[in-house]
């Protein structure tokens, strides 16, 4: 495969969230979404740091968005998944499915 960049578990989670949240993904929404879908408490700072790292690696891009009153009039930094990011996620999913197919078949009948 020759892939040079890899994603950690947390990075993959954040990247997936950015994909899911589409137009509305920034720090707080990601924290909330992870709490909602994954029942997992993550700290805002970890999310931010990971987003910046993903941006550096080229999997997401960011743009400044509209301010709301609730944020003390401060702008949001929205994140959007790039094509590289999408390819990356897909690759990870495929390779995992490949591995699963190699595992002995589990019998789920009760």
């Amino acid at each position, binding site marked *: 495969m020759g892939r040079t960049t890899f994603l950690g578990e947390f990075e993959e989670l954040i990247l997936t969230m950015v994909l899911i949240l589409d137009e509305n993904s920034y720090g707080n929404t990601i924290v909330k979404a992870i709490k909602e879908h994954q029942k997992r408490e993550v700290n*805002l*700072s*970890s999310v*931010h*740091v990971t987003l*910046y790292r993903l941006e550096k690696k080229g999997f997401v891009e960011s743009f400044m968005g509209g301010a709301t009153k*609730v944020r*003390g009039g*401060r702008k*949001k930094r929205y994140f959007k998944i790039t094509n590289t990011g999408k390819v990356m996620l897909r690759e990870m999913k495929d390779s995992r499915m490949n591995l699963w197919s190699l595992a002995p078949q589990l019998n789920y009948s009760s």
Partner: protein
Amino acid sequence: MNHSPPKFFVRFFLWFCRHDLQETILGDLEEQFDEDLRYYGPSKAKQRFAWNVLRFFRPEIIKKKEKTQRFNYYSMHNHYLKTGLRNILKHKTFSFLNILGLAVGIASCLTILQYVAFESSYDQFHSRKDDIYRVDSDHFRDSVLLFRSDGSAFELGPTLKRMVPGIEEVARTHVLEGGAVITFEGASSGHSRQFLEEQGMMYFVDQAFFDLFDYKVLKGNSERLLEAPNSIVITEAMWQKYLPDVDDPVGKTLNVGGGRYPGTFQITGVIETLPENTLYSFGFLMPIHDLLKSEQYVEDDGWSWTNFVTYAMIKPGSSFEQVCRQARNILLDHIDEEEDYESYVSFTSLNDLHLRDELSQGGITAETVSFFMIIAIFIIAIAWLNYINLSTAQAIRRAKEVGIRKTVGAAKSQLIFQFLLEAMVVNTIALLLAFMLASGTVPLLTEVIGKSFHFGFGIHTTHWVLFFGAFVAGTLLSGFYPALVLSRFKPAVVIGGSLSVKRKFGLRQVLVTAQLMISVFLIAGTYTVHRQLQFMLNQDLGLNVDQVISITGPMVYEDEELMRQKMKLFQEKLRALPTVNSVSGSDAIPGGDYNWSTGMSVDGKENAERKSIRLMFVDDQFQNTYGMELIAGRFHDPNLKGEKHPVVVNETLIRKFDLGSAEEAIGKKMRTGSTTFPIIGVLKDYHWTSLKQETTPILLYYTENGGSVSLRLSATDIQETLMIVEKEYKALFPDNPFNYDFMDEYFARQYQSDKQFRQIFSVFSFIAIMIACLGLFGLASFTLNQRVKEIGIRKVLGARMSSILMLLYKDYMLLIGLATVVVSPVVYFALNQWLSDFAYRINITFDLLLLPVVVLTVIMLLTISYQSFRAAVANPAASLRKE
């Protein structure tokens, strides 16, 4: 809804966060805050905001310094640290001495501080400790204070509470004199337990005792623990001792046998095991109203028997001075007509009872504690002096480095900073080592003093403050002077390579002299403490306690007459044993208490002054059992009939009452009240108690029913004899535990605290001297390095080895001499002060000062000999070739 995030944290965030990220992150944070506000409410939301801000404090987010600045500070510090560490590693011996000296010094200091903190923590766990006072009485005659006593009558407490508005509550306590035998009758015989509890384990107290003092009640109703008659409160430790199998001791009964108030008591509560640092280390508490029902106190109007100790708690906010004024004269209305002195109420704070109570005998005092503090300061001072010494000595080696740094452009302040940083590195390493050492030595110390305190930093913030204060002070003190010296070098001179150190009497010599002075002081001190203790232990007591054992007589019995007959039978049986030389019954034994103290006068003298004497009840065998020497008259003999109340007295009594010579005293009479006591014999003075106290006038009165039995055994088969004695005892008194003491051990127990003092003192003196030696060692190697060429030239010119060695030793001998001369007056004064506490003491002689000189000289020779010798035998060709 107008809550905003904590300002401080917002500012903090803006301070550390990168500019390009600030706006969006802060936005996110505020949005989160807003949501938390609705979810958790304002205070929790603020907390979470603060936490979130702190979590952003990570390298990815933190502002980077401007490029050039970063280069200067960060890598320069890095470089300083690196050269510092390299330097430590390069000169291993030096660094080792340096760090070891510091570490041992700091560790000793920490250990002592820990101990001092423990001694100062007595009874500090009571929440109202600052309001609690012991009620004392000051006795005056003609406006002169005769003495102060902590004993008060049982009406004093309630009267104080009634008459003095500033007093919130009082609690009376009364120790059960002589102890008692306590029995728990379990369900089956296997569960029964019986022990002899010594005096001090049992107290009669008011219910208010629990209001004044904070004891944690584990079982029972804390409001009414001692309300019911015959109730008893035990500690957790006693629960384990007597009823370990019982889940809830409340309601069970204990039998208190013997002692003065025997009976059956029902357990009404259990309190937590008392901590080590409390004055009252009781095991049982009983209601004082039970005690007051006994005959002795029913007959009393409440002001005669002053064998209660009363505590008063004043209301918060009320003036202590006013309470004192109002309470002072209360005793005047209830004074005993017969007494020829007036008594006034006074108070001693609970906080002063452990270390600053003038009434307590022996034990640890504030003086001892401050003495240890002084030693601690000495040790740390020696350690720091050492560091300064060794670092400046080493400085010459760094001269070139300093020169080059200066040439390249280092400012003086930068150099000072560099060497301070190095000092900090060394201090930090030493500190870590010291911590490990101290956590090892504290358990040793607790073993020596027999009290358990833990090496617990972190509990008290004051400790941390002290500790970091010491660290910063240590770094600055020990680092600043070397830093200053080093940064002063002139580059042109040092790089040229001809740097020489002037050999005048410089600071280094002053420092070494200071160390030597402390060492002289400590050696002289250790030696004196040792000599005094040896003196007390070896002093002829005037009585012989070797091979004597003393057995506590039965305390539990039904019929007193029957018990007396059994006691006689017991003594007869013991006398019949071949390995028992003599048997004596008495109510008091040497090294223990006296039976009675009373005032007596000489019969027949007009206006004879009453003086205090001690009275002991003994039988006719007492003299030969304890090997006392009779110098006139005869000892008690029940077979010889004579006047009533014959007594045998000691020499001190003859002297104090001016009865002339021993022979003249025979036949004269002592009087108290209307009773007269004719003197039939005079004993040579003997030490009934520790040599710390003067011998007092003693009067031996005859009794055939002594409570203790003393046996003089022949040297063989002591263990076997003891077993036979125990069997006889158990057969006659099955309800009583067999309890005995070897009298020589019993007597020596009085010196326990002195022995501990000697042990601790010697150990820390040794440590201090050892650290000073490290300093000498370092200094020696430094000066030798400086004089290698000189020695080489001398050798070439024909100096013999001995004269070279003399040359080297001379300087140090001079320093030792100087140190001794300077410190002598201080030593003399301090030791005299210490010795003045002892009634029988050694004199300070010349050898007390000679010994430190000899010891130090020997130690010094040992320390520097190796290096001096090497320098003296070295081939001069080797040292002179370099240039």
